[in-house]
């Protein structure tokens, strides 16, 4: 039983970083209707910027991290403004290809600049410390990830519920033409959405970096976050969070009880199974095409 709880808790902790990536993807999917393959790299570049600020320029954490998040915000906005918006008559495949192109571009630059060697991100909390609750261990970093993820979800919830920009975003996602007629600058709103998504992803990146820091570090969380978002239905923010936690927990339980070797692929088997029965995910209303 203890073992089971331990695995579930670790799964939830890992699921938190997936959830942040998934949230970013869903935000962008709702705004631009594209599965955003550049999500991981929109977090990767800021993480390496943070690394440079901390190790080369010696800035303290409380300056470096906010600067990083602001940078991420502008990076997301610029990608939308300069690249995605310029697409001519885009279809889904075309948009996917554009995000893959941006992903290769950013990943190429980061790995050209920093090489392929492992680095260690300086971080206020050591990744070896852990907290003991009853008989269950959880590393302090995982605990922090969990808390930060919940905190960001709360902020996003409040943002969409009470702030003017948040409501404008929801309006744009529901009906772009009507929103534009109501005086909402939909292009600007979409840019801000990309910015927020990049910032949310960067938080996940910053929390992963102390454990693993190399140019390909965001691939796995991005794919798992995508998987979680698809399980949850791609258009639902709570669904993405829930799906990401499912992916994290299932992954850990499978790794613990069945086979540690196939741990990293079980997420994809889960999504194929879920999609067989619910083609639009668990939480989204099934989209029926009007003829």
């Amino acid at each position, binding site marked *: 039983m203890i073992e089971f709880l331990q695995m579930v808790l670790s799964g939830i902790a890992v699921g938190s970083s997936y959830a942040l990536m998934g949230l970013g993807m869903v935000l962008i*999917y709702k705004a631009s209707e*594209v*599965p955003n393959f550049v999500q991981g790299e929109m977090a990767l570049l800021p993480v390496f910027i943070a690394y440079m600020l901390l190790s080369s320029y010696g800035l303290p954490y409380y300056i470096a991290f906010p600067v990083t998040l602001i940078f991420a915000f502008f990076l997301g906005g610029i990608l939308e403004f300069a*690249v995605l918006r*310029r*697409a*001519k*008559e*885009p279809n*889904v*495949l*075309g948009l*996917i*290809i*554009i995000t*893959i*192109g*941006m*992903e*290769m*571009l*950013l*990943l*190429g*630059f980061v*790995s*050209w*600049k*920093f*090489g*392929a*060697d492992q680095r260690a991100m300086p971080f206020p909390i050591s990744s070896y410390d852990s907290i003991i609750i009853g008989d269950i261990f959880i590393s302090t970093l995982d605990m922090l990830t969990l808390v930060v993820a919940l905190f960001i979800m709360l902020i996003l919830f409040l943002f969409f519920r009470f702030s003017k920009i948040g409501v404008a975003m929801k309006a744009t996602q529901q009906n772009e033409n009507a929103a534009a007629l109501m005086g909402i600058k939909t292009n600007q709103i979409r840019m801000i959405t990309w910015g927020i998504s990049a910032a949310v992803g960067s938080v996940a990146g910053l929390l992963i970096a102390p454990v693993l820091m190399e*140019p390909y570090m965001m*691939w796995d969380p991005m*794919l798992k976050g*995508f*998987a979680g978002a*698809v399980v949850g239905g*791609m258009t639902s923010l709570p669904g993405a969070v829930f799906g990401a936690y499912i992916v994290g927990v299932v992954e850990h339980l499978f790794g613990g009880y069945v086979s540690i*070797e*196939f741990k*990293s*692929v079980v*997420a*994809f*088997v889960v*999504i*194929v199974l879920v*999609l*067989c029965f619910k*083609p*639009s*995910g668990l939480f989204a209303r099934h989209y029926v*095409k009007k*003829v």
Partner: protein
Amino acid sequence: MDMKRDYYEDVQFFTSGAITFWLSTLVIGLTLFPFVAKNYYVYVANYMAINVIVVIGLNLLVGYTGQISMGHAGFFAIGAYGTVALMTHAHFPFLLALPVAGLIAAGFGFLLGLPALRLEGPYLAIATLGFGITITQIIGKIKILGERQGLHAPELTIGPWHLNTDRDFYFLLIPITIFLAVLARNLVHTKVGRAFIAIRDADIAAETMGVNLTFYKTLAFAVSAFYAGVGGGLYAFVLRFIEPELFSLFMSVMFLTMAVVGGLGSMMGPIAGASLLALLDLQLRNILGIPYIGEWLEALSRNYFSITGVSNIQMIVFGSILIAIMLFEPLGIYGIWIRTKKYWKMWPY
């Protein structure tokens, strides 16, 4: 411009004298090529031909049927491992092992096509992507497939003919490539191909016209997987050594890139895209060896970037090409060709 007046004109292979001339020039050029080129360039040509085979198959699925696949490296891996395993463990001759491995890949394509019937857009993308990743992980754990260490391709013998060099293999590979390309081209002009196109343009309309969606969508996946499988089987003998890490997500993305850069939904486009990008891929691997640019890049890397990561310039180049193509010419190389042709036909108007 190119008005088709009846059915036979549509299915005709040599539509004009110019096309007959250029196609025969191409065939003669391909035949003479290994006699004049250096060994390395024959290897390059083999590599290009493999990519052409896979991308033609992928184009049948993505360009003609309108489905997305981000897992073609999975089928490619099945074909490669299937061929080698059938030859070493079951002692099949190569010419039997290759189509059988292709059919195994097609079987997996059929299986993947079943959930794909109900999926579209991002859901299909993640499902196929997951398939590609899962397959390579599973192959990496199977004992007779060499696990993580990979497999060596066996000696290749067809009847009395020993294919030891790239040059020998070229003469096997190029006819297969041409055969498969012509097959795909003819398939598109049959009932099956028109069903594919109808599904791409409007699947509901196609269904009401009597196109069996279940059959044709799974068929598209199976045919496409067959091409990828055959390509994989041949690839094993170009490299002579295969390991699971080769068949990564990056490879699936590269196949998709080639199809898109060439131009989806055309026959010559993917061939051009696959050849060009495969060539670029090989050339960029030793980017520092390129005169002038290489030296400049080396200095740049030493001063501002890192010299260990210099191979990643490849990614930057591919990423830029992808973005540029999608932003300026969504129809790819084929679109550029059509525009140029139209311009000169209408010139000076």
